[in-house]
């Protein structure tokens, strides 16, 4: 019997289900869900701690999603091994599930480096899943001193979530800048200062050398007292299922623009995969929610016999921290690499644009982010900026900077 199988039950899996059903309404879908919940919005775990959402609001789709889409979900079991010859997946309970087409949407796992004395720390957590979040919530009280290792997106989102629920938050990172994956020297200090004003303490260019119970000895020689530890130094794509059968794996599972892996009938999408990134013109892991959905959707359409390509992925982030908004996308091409950089700073606002060869390649907005999608559009569609009033557009993203003809097309027809 024909059957689609999806390993993982996150955003990429949901995209795949919707992609399959765009094309094929009949063939059954089996979803293997390591976590015991219907697909939920992973990025909302910090908003949950913050009280900005509630458990029943975190579902990504409505209650009848799986039933409506003819999916059978196997909760709390994991896929252990794929047999590409037999077209079967071996589950942790010993069962074999046959597939016609398979999607690996296994996401990523938190990377936890080794620290001397880590075994003496009683309360330690990652910040990746709903279960992590619920255990972390149990471990804190309003006097807790929380140490977060990692000043990236996940570490700082965790800090924001915990801020009003604990006594003190200290964040350390080996990098010199906070959010080093999306900000640069011009923008990171402003964001760090804002977080400091909100009571977060930072130890940058520093990390933990060793632990002794509730004391962290830092590489700089300083000491940090804490009672709850969160490690958020980064995530690693879950690639073992494909590397285990000799499929092409780099940092992530390598896929083409149809989201197909090097193994016939097996696709991959989301955080576990490494697909084409338009902004650098090569494959890259883009562990972001929109990318997971779009990759999953593309895979679904193709698994069901349709024809779709995902060839305009770029890194892009929109995120707020304690009332400051940050929107970034693309590639920050420096002047030394032939780029032209435009930077405007006002008291509450930084706007930075990276241009090369008449195309916008990347941008960073801190503060006012309204209309930022127009910049993302310029990057993804490679619009020649000489055809626009780019000077105006930098301050004021709207279609006044475009030609009348383009406006007529965009706002006078169905898009």
């Amino acid at each position, binding site marked *: 019997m024909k059957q689609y199988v999806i390993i993982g039950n996150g955003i990429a899996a949901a*995209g795949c289900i919707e992609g399959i059903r765009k094309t094929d309404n009949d063939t059954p879908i089996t979803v293997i869900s390591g976590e015991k919940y219907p697909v939920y*919005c992973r*990025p*909302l775990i910090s*908003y949950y701690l913050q009280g*900005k*959402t509630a458990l029943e*609001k*975190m*579902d*990504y*789709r409505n209650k009848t999603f799986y039933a409506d889409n003819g999916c059978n979900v196997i909760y709390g079991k994991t896929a252990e091994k794929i047999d590409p010859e037999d077209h079967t997946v071996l589950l942790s309970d010993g069962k074999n599930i046959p597939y016609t087409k398979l999607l690996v949407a296994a996401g990523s796992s938190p990377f936890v480096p080794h620290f001397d004395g880590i075994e003496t720390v009683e309360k330690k957590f990652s910040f990746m899943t709903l279960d992590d979040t619920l255990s972390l919530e149990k471990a804190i009280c309003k006097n807790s001193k929380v140490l977060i290792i990692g000043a990236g997106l996940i570490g700082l989102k965790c800090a924001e979530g915990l801020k009003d629920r604990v006594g003190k938050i200290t964040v350390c990172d080996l990098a010199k800048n906070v959010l080093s994956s999306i900000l640069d020297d011009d923008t990171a200090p402003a964001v760090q200062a804002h977080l400091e004003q909100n009571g977060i303490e930072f130890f940058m260019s520093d990390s933990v050398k060793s632990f002794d119970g509730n004391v962290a000895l830092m590489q700089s020689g300083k000491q940090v007292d804490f009672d709850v530890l969160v490690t958020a130094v980064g995530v690693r794509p879950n690639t073992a299922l494909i590397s285990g059968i000799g499929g092409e794996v780099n940092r992530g599972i390598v896929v083409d623009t149809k989201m197909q892996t090097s193994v016939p009938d097996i696709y991959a999408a989301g955080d576990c995969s490494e697909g084409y990134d338009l902004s650098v013109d090569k494959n890259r892991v883009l562990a972001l*929610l*929109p990318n997971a*959905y*779009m990759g999953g*959707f593309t895979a679904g359409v193709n698994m069901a016999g349709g024809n779709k390509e995902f060839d305009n992925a770029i890194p*892009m*982030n*929109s*995120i*707020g921290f304690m009332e400051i*908004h940050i*929107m970034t*996308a693309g590639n920050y091409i420096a002047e030394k690499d032939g780029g032209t950089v435009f930077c405007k700073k006002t008291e509450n606002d930084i706007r930075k644009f990276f241009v090369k060869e008449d195309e916008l390649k990347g941008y960073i907005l801190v503060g006012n*982010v*309204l*209309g*930022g*999608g*127009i910049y*993302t*559009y310029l990057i993804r*569609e490679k619009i020649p900026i000489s055809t626009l009033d780019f000077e105006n557009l930098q301050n004021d*993203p*709207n*279609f*006044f900077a475009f030609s*009348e003809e383009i*406006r*007529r097309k*965009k*706002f*006078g*027809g*169905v*898009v």
Partner: protein
Amino acid sequence: MKRIFVNEEWCLGCHLCEYNCAFANSGMKNMALALKGKKIFPKIHVYGNDKINFAVSCRHCEDPLCVKACISGALHIKDGRVCIDKTKCVGCYSCIMVCPYGSLSVGETGVASKCELCLDNACGSPACVKGCPNNAIVYEER
């Protein structure tokens, strides 16, 4: 499906559509009480200069990027319309990051705000179009 389309050559730049939008979505019966002396948060915005003007609201795309990018599942498609569940939105603005038209905005409470064609409020069809004095925005099938 009927959508809103723009005739920029007719637009006066009067911003009435913005006020009618804010009023229609205020849930109130009296325009003065709803809007007077208050900062308004319309879902349609007029751009341009002293000569050229045009009003931009959600295009209700057939393949909307905002729905794909939404991190909370708040944005969804309902009978062809792109709608938002404000109780789910957390105000991350990923939708604003991907909307190629700059259509989404931020509402009074900080969550994303967008045109739903007035089909769920008392107006029943787009208030901006109803109130436009010069047919610079129209609501029709194209």
